[in-house]
């Protein structure tokens, strides 16, 4: 039964949903309904996930690995996409065309994400990443009348095209080295001592470039700010949470099953990349006047913290993925709240005085920002704490110090937004109206940020199963 498509039934549901939406969109069904269709498809997919149990090894010709990590990550991806859909429902779109297709894209992208998350074959990885990328290009440029959006789309495309091309080339080199693209086989070969020296390094670095592009690690982060700023808010949220998470998931999938290849990489280079990522992200976010752009750079910095944990090797994975889980809540919450508070104008001035005009949402936004900054006792703090914990345990005090110093710098720009909302006199009056979906989403995220602070075991226990 290892070739049965029931292993990907969740994805099939999504694809089916996507077709339905596409058809419905053609017949002019309104956005809200389509969103509900997408939402139900996603929820159905979540409920279909257990059908892949019991967990085993590779299925479907080795294309899919039916392991706990993949299972968990698929669940994670589906949940975050649910959040994205909720956000897109509550978000006051400045233009209301082609929204049916929007949900179509989101669902297809989710299929790609899911398959990538449990891919067992490099070809599958490439296809899924490329699909995700292509859809992301379109989504980033979705406001085709908006100069910024189209520029974001094309910039994302230009950057992504090279990144995926590099990754593909790397994959072909791996194929050239081992004659197979099956990750389990390659892993076994490498573990068996068949390390192809520098050639494998080249291949690995090229593959890493493609993934680091998704995860927005320095120096593959350059697109992030421009694309997030130009892209519609929900798309930016999608890119910053789900798409970025995929980068890390694949880094684990590809590099952590055979750590020996990349030992020098993880030992010497990864910490440097992590430090650079968080520092450059933080530094660039420091003076931003656009909240969106600031959040974009902040997401780069956050990626740096996540990668800092990963750079410590296998021991850091728990911390990294706890961070990713927390990050999903807080970053999604931050993007959503920011989008709801000022749907069009993302400049800092637009947020001035919102603490009084939209007290609840502004407060929640502040919570997310503070969590991103790592303020105790919010979950963002615990996430950073575990990263530092791991670093100190590994005696990597430089990394720990870098995380710590960066979190100090980080506070500045997060607080700047809070300051604008609470300290400053209010800007031109616009009272943001936020729908129940908005409150549901943001409430859920706050719940996550608080719950994971009080009861982090919920996630830690699962992660313990994954990374033992």
């Amino acid at each position, binding site marked *: 039964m290892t070739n049965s498509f029931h292993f990907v039934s969740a994805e099939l549901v999504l694809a089916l949903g996507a077709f339905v939406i596409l058809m419905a969109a053609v017949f002019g069904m309104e956005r809200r309904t389509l969103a509900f269709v997408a939402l139900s498809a996603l929820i159905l997919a979540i409920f279909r996930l257990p059908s892949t149990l019991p967990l085993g090894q590779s299925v479907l010709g080795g294309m899919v690995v039916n392991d706990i990590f993949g299972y968990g990550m698929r669940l994670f991806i589906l949940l975050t996409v649910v959040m994205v859909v909720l956000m897109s429902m509550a978000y006051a779109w400045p233009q209301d065309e082609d929204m049916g297709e929007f949900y179509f894209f989101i669902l297809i992208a989710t299929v790609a994400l899911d398959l990538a998350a449990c891919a067992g074959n490099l070809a599958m990885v490439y296809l899924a990443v490329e699909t995700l990328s292509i859809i992301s290009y379109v989504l980033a440029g979705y406001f085709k009348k908006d100069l910024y959006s189209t520029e974001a789309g094309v910039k994302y495309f230009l950057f992504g095209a090279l990144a995926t091309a590099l990754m593909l080339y790397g994959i072909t080199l791996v194929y050239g080295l081992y004659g197979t693209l099956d990750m389990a086989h390659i892993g076994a070969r490498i573990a068996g001592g068949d390390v192809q020296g520098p050639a494998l390094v080249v291949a690995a670095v090229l593959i890493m470039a493609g993934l680091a592009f998704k995860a927005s690690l320095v120096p593959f982060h350059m697109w992030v700010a421009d694309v997030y700023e130009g892209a519609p808010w929900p798309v930016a949220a999608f890119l910053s949470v789900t798409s970025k998470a995929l980068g890390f998931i694949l880094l684990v999938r590809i590099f952590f099953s055979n750590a020996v290849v990349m030992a020098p990489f993880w030992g010497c280079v990864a910490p440097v990349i992590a430090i650079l990522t968080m520092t450059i992200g*933080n530094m660039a976010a420091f003076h931003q006047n656009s909240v969106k752009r600031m959040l974009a750079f902040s997401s780069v910095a956050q990626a740096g913290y996540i990668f800092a944990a990963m750079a410590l090797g296998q021991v850091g994975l728990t911390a990294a993925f706890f961070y990713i889980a927390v990050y999903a809540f807080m970053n999604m919450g931050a993007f959503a709240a920011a989008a709801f508070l000022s749907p069009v104008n993302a400049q800092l001035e637009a947020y001035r005085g919102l603490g009084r005009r939209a007290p609840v949402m502004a407060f929640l936004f502040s919570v997310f920002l503070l969590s991103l900054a790592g303020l105790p006792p919010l979950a963002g703090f615990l996430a950073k704490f575990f990263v530092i914990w791991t670093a100190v345990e590994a005696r990597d005090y430089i990394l720990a110090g870098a995380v710590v110093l960066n979190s100090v710098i980080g506070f500045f720009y997060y607080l700047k937004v809070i300051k604008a909302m609470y300290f400053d006199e209010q800007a031109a009056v616009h009272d943001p109206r936020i729908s129940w979906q908005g409150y549901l989403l943001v409430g859920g995220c706050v719940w996550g940020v608080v719950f994971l602070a009080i009861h982090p075991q919920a996630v830690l226990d699962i992660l313990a199963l994954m990374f033992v």
Partner: protein
Amino acid sequence: MVNIAHFIPVFPFVAFWLNIIFGCRLGVACAYVSVGASAISAVLAVLVFMGLQAGGGSYVLTPWLSVNGHPISLGIIVDSLTVMMLLVVTIVGTLIQIYSIGYMGGDPRFTRYFAYISLFMSSMLGLVLVDNLFLLYIFWEGVGLCSCLLVAFWYEKPAAAAAGIKAFITTRVGDTGLLLGILLLMSVGHSLRFADMSVISAPEPLMVLAALLIFMGAVGKSAQFPLHVWLPDAMEGPTAVSALIHAATMVAAGVYLVARCYPLFTAHPLALQTVAVIGAISAVMAASIACFANDIKKVLAYSTISQLGLMMLGLGAGGYTGGTFHLMTHAFFKALLFLGAGSVIHAVHTQDIRAMGGLFNKMKVTSVTFIIGALALAGVAPLSGFWSKDEILTAVWQHGNLGLFIAAVTTSFLTAFYMTRLILLAFFGESRGAHKAHESPAVMTMPLVILAFFALFLGFAGSPWAHHAFQRFIAPEEGEVALDLGMAVASTVIACAGILTAFLLRGKFLGYKEGTCALIENKYYFDEIYDALFVKPFHRLAAAVARFDQVRVDGVVNGVSRCVQELAQASRSLQTGLVENYLLAQAGGVFVLIVVVTLVGKLCHIF
């Protein structure tokens, strides 16, 4: 009856709070509260005196604090020295408070005045009652505070405000020494109880240091050289305050302290010698300045410094009884002198003796009592000052150091001289001011008369006719004392010589051209020197520190923040917005990564 001693300071303390809290409602009545409280204290003091057994005793009220494992208890010592001080303080204090009712009458802060005075009384009484240095220090500062507050009582006057602060800070310099001495004594001697002073054994240099540090406190409080500068300025306060605090009681606390810790000093000759020398210097110096001072209160202030110096000299020369005896007599006659001066000032509204003159006929009581006080101060037999001063001179003579003896003699001579000058200028001759002087009310003159009585007859307590009652009371272990007749004669002669000299020179006092003796007229330039040496540098240093704080310390902080911001700006400009740059970074990153990973791999022999 001794065990009631600790109640003595309580009454004034209660009076203080009554006056502070209910002052505005009590009005003039608050004076009666204070006077009553201190009268009760006086009665209690007398009771204690009468109940005093030989040698006295001490008792502990409650354990209070523990420092380094050594308990500091709230202990009371009641011996002859304490009782003497108690009597002096309560009697003089009560009289001066009665006087103040008249003197301060009509002052807008009448109640506040009496509150402060009561607080002072309670602190001063506490000071003399406690049985260890630490508690003494507490009250020591308390009297200093009251001194400061009362000196600056008329704080609208800038000079008064400045004088108050000067008084506190200057004494605080000495007090800091005292504090360090206490700490040193505690750490090497393990006890601060006066009773243990004679049995403390510790390395000699440390003990000398401790003694000198404690003496430093005395120097500050008793306005001895070189910390004497505050006392003349303190004359800005109400004259009654000067009488009580800056003549009779508080300034004598320094002498009391030395007397209290006498075993500590006697065990270490160097310390004792220092006390003597400082005392001698202060005595001569202040006396010489007094000769040229024209402010009636300043004259008395310098005289006080001088007399206190004499007491120190006496103590330093081994004359324990002399020092303490003079302390007691001096309290009465100097209080008398100050109150008299106050009465004069009250009448003529000036303090410049050159603007007085001819007051004798207008203010009979004041004048007579003042002259009695002056004669006592000058040491004319058989007034009280004679007996005590004679005791000191004897002690210094017996001590054998000729220099010190000359200093003592000179002081005696000068004392007689400037007091005569003062009296001649103020009470006799032409009336030079356009003032209609009149005698003060009875409430003011009555204390004068009583004090004059003491000034006249108190000395007999130490005279052979009273079988040296005082000496036997204060230092019973010293055995028989006898009057050195020669010294008595000499001392009287010296005093008379001083008086005579003043008479001879009386014509020149008024026509005296300032600047002839610039050094002395300018008080040996102490104020100027201290100003240049401490005050100005202090201000300048403070300003420099503040500037340093602002520019350097904070500058570094702001500099770090600016650095981060610049760096942030720089990293931001990396994001050029040009995809081509992004792509180059991407490809370059790949290249660098490959190279680095390969190199690292090679270096670590992984490949």
